[in-house]
């Protein structure tokens, strides 16, 4: 291997760590804005998740490629620059090919730039490991994030309108819970889900 830090890069581990063990939303509690803001319905949540995967994979790849050339004090600005560039591309793509989604997500697409997940992965993984590991890590963390978004959005959409991804699921007599569409629904659902995640992992720790 070209790099000295990761002598035996574990590709499988890089891919799966982000899914549960280091799941950004449920376990690490970073990048909390999008899970709260864009999860009123499944479709925008999925779009957001895909955007984050794209940006995460691309920026991880670029940073990993130039990791040996980076001057330490210019590191953060380099991260910001590459992340912002890929977010701009993602934003343009959404505006061109998914205008509805672009409108719903609004300012939350450019806000991916300051999503802690991306800069955290750049710092913790991409600036130390080779390209393949970084890409796998990006896919893993991104998918973990997307799953979290979809779970949250699924619960909220189901209770708020009786639909899942715009398909009617609940029986006709179901009274929608309007509160789930409001900010309170986002906060409480996410709080309970994190608590649930803590219950699942608790026995393993002891």
């Amino acid at each position: 291997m070209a790099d000295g830090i990761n002598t035996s890069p574990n590709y499988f581990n890089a891919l799966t760590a982000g899914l549960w063990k280091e799941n950004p939303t449920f376990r690490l509690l970073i990048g909390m804005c999008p899970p709260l803001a864009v999860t009123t319905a499944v479709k925008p949540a999925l779009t957001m998740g895909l955007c984050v995967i794209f940006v995460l994979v691309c920026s991880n790849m670029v940073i990993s490629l130039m990791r040996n050339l980076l001057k330490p004090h210019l590191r953060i600005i380099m991260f910001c620059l590459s992340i912002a560039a890929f977010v701009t591309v993602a934003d343009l793509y959404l505006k061109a090919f998914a205008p509805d989604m672009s409108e719903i997500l609004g300012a939350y697409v450019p806000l991916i730039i300051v999503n802690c997940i991306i800069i955290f992965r750049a710092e913790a993984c991409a600036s130390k490991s080779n390209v393949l590991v970084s890409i796998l890590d990006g896919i893993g963390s991104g998918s973990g994030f997307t799953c979290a978004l979809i779970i949250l959005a699924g619960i909220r959409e189901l209770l708020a309108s009786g639909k899942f991804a715009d398909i009617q699921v609940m029986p006709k007599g179901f009274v929608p819970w309007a509160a789930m569409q409001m900010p309170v629904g986002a906060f409480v659902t996410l709080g309970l889900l994190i608590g649930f995640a803590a219950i699942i992992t608790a026995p393993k720790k002891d």
Partner: protein
Amino acid sequence: MSNISVLIMAFLSVVIVNNFVFTKFLGTCPYLGCSGRIDTAFGMGLAVTFVTTLSGILTWLVDHYILVPNKLEITRYICYIIVIAGAVQLVEMYVKKFFPPLYKSFGIFLPLISTNCVILGICLFINIWGINNLPEVAVLSAGAGIGFTVAICIMAAIRETLKLADVPPALKDAPITLITAGLLTLGFMGFTGMIK
């Protein structure tokens, strides 16, 4: 007169009615991380207010006088983030050199907050709302920071009391904070419609 009342309205609207934490979910990470004690929360809030004001005005100026006349709107996000990162770094150096006691109390938060969503958020929303005069931009960006300070201080005060409460073990720390924040948003929803 009417100008001043517009500014007061804008300020109240961004601090209370459209509070960034409660209605736009921006700055949730530090909101969860730094709201354990009221003095750290207040320090964080002050640092954020300082930087939002500065970078809100700077990004608006850059946008208005450099990007739009030259039709470079496409590079907006990159310019914003670089201006913000630069502003944070400048503030840090300045405070460290000239106000050492102040640096001791909130300087440690400064490097953290270049990735605070509130800051990029206010810059983007000023652009989306299409604000086109400097006083309003200044008031809005300061207001966003103050709104964040208000939110994080309320939360810190609640959490200090919550430590004594009997919370189920799984819900300790972050989950109960999120649920409390949810109830707070309900309270803040009562302000909607206050400002036309």
